[in-house]
């Protein structure tokens, strides 16, 4: 049977759906209808492709991390360089797509949630690019650990609203953005940052991010004469991962590996890895997914060194890919991610985002046990400039 999800109601098997308060139901339905209308519109597609090429700088290259691979002595590690995109991460692909849709829907005000700040920066960027008012909700805890990105958003003309409720991280920023949307539903387009949330977001964000995997599918044969043996990406909500994975779902010889944030280790309970930790199915932020929660259905505070992965849920398509066994999900702990961060800096002269360092760390873990002619393609989803303060703090250095 051919893989074709979601269904018309936005379900990926038992996952996904539209779990929203009544006030927002007409808004998500309108969004769904408008997206379906423009998705295949040649003019929309042409404009999206033009922006990706001339504004974002696509296609992003694939780079053979040869020194690092040699050092590990096993499989060859290749990097899909999303860190080289304008704004420094994959988030801009989706932000452009949604902004073009917002423009067609006549919305002059855009809002966004952000964790590490990359989606906030991407949204602030496209808002400036298209002349829209931009409000970004960000957990107060994240504002502290991602100060450079907060300043970037402000430079770009966005208003950054600190969120003090709950755990003061990404999930709370989502709650606050949803509250804004309920209140300003007619004037406002919610540029959601990851492949989760109510239908059509998981599908729409995936479609916009699929440019990553679509390019890789062409680039890899050009470089090595074949597809890689595995594609590897970090998974918080999972938008960079689904963008790389989705085009490879129907290529059975390519293994798909998602890497969650193991924090202090799954056993410690302080992590952000619902798939690896076998969390129960639950409902949050508009969709049914695997969710880190207590036995009473309350969402538990998560932990990760990387703000962008510090989220209790995960996109519904990853839940399905786990259940049907097409993708494998593993966790990488904070210290392993930091070691990979250092290694890429020293061996390749590339400073990766802490999020992407999780994916790289898993590749570095499995590469030594594999033959030298095996190829691992890692999505280097973002660059690490934003993480200077976090890494310096951990190393006990004051900048």
């Amino acid at each position, binding site marked *: 049977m051919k893989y074709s999800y979601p269904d018309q109601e936005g379900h990926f098997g038992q996952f996904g759906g539209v779990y929203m308060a*009544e*006030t927002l139901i007409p808004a998500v339905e309108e969004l769904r209808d408008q997206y379906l209308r423009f998705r295949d519109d040649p003019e929309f597609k042409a404009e999206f492709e033009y922006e990706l090429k001339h504004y974002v700088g696509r296609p992003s290259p694939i780079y053979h991390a040869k020194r690092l691979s040699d050092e590990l002595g096993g499989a060859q590690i290749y990097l899909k360089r999303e860190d080289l995109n304008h704004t420094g991460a994959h988030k801009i692909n989706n932000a452009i797509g949604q902004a073009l849709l917002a423009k067609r829907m006549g919305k002059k005000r855009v809002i966004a949630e952000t964790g590490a700040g990359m989606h906030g920066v991407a949204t602030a960027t496209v808002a400036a690019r298209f002349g829209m008012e931009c409000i970004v909700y960000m957990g107060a805890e994240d504002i502290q650990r991602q100060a450079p990105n907060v300043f970037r958003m402000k430079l770009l003309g966005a208003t950054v609203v600190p969120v003090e409720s709950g755990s003061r991280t990404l999930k709370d920023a989502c709650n606050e953005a949803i509250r804004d949307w309920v209140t300003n539903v007619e004037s406002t387009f919610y540029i959601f940052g990851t492949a989760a949330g109510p239908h059509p977001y998981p599908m729409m964000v995936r479609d916009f991010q699929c440019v990553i995997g679509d390019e890789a599918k062409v680039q890899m044969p050009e470089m090595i004469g074949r597809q890689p043996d595995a594609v590897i990406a970090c998974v918080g909500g999972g938008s960079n991962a689904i963008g790389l994975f989705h085009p490879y779902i129907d290529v059975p010889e390519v293994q798909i590996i998602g890497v969650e944030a193991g924090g202090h280790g799954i056993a410690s309970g302080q992590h952000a890895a619902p798939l690896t930790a076998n969390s129960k199915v639950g409902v949050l*932020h508009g969709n049914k997914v695997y969710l880190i929660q207590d036995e*009473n*259905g309350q969402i538990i505070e998560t932990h990760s060194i990387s703000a962008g992965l510090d989220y209790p849920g995960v996109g519904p398509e990853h839940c399905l890919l786990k259940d049907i066994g097409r993708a494998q999900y593993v966790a990488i702990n904070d210290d392993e991610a930091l070691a990979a961060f250092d290694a890429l800096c020293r061996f390749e002269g590339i400073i990766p985002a802490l999020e992407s360092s999780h994916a790289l760390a898993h590749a570095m873990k499995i590469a030594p046990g594999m033959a030298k002619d095996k190829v691992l393609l890692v999505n280097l989803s973002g660059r690490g400039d934003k993480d200077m303060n976090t890494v310096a703090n951990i190393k006990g250095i004051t900048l």
Partner: protein
Amino acid sequence: MSRIDTTFENLKQQNRKALIPFITAGDPAQALTVPLMHGLVKAGADVLELGVPFSDPMADGPTIQRASERALKNGMSLRGVLDLVAEFRKQDTTTPVVLMGYGNPIEAMGWEAFAKRCAEVGVDGALTVDFPPEESHEAFEHLQAHGIAPIFLLAPTTKEARIEQVAKLARGYVYYVSLKGVTGAGNLDLSAIEEKLPQLRKHIKLPIGVGFGIRDAATAKAVAKLCDGVVVGSRIVQEIENSTEQNVVANVGRLVQELRVAIDN
């Protein structure tokens, strides 16, 4: 006839409107919830909406968010809320109790176990803010099997086709959210409610309660004229927040009494 239907039928015969106060279970203390519920009834409440606290109350404004946080800190859980209703029922077998909250705590307990326990302890209806009809098939089966009314929200943005759909599934009463926004917002637009109600009445034969943004006796009175019941949440929760454990029952009772008088006159 269910407790909710009986209550609205009696009110109709007396030509009166329902007063439906909301409190969050476990706020300000678990031991005060049942006394508060009895106090609300004594002050003139017809139906009680009992909030089940959730860690991520996306549809709520700051006042009810804080109430949820206090309740969770006090160890309140869905099972605990159900136990409190059982205790309430020892003294009050007639006032309808509707649980209001988000779907995930119920998902975690399981809809079947939840519906069964609701029936055991005397819960009459359940409103899950983030479970629209499209996603609630399994939920309804279990609620209906145990005689628990699914209560639905309708909003100013709801289109006619959805009103029709909700009309088919809803039991007890329908809760019209009177504004675009979270609970406790201040921008109540009476003329917009007045305009929307005929469209609702065309399909909905159940009583219609209106809530969100009702802050004082004057707005309660004005809204009551338009519909069958007035839901007051944030204003009451605010009173709880501003009271001590010693005077909270009396303070909330006084406020609800004022609302009662305003609605009846």
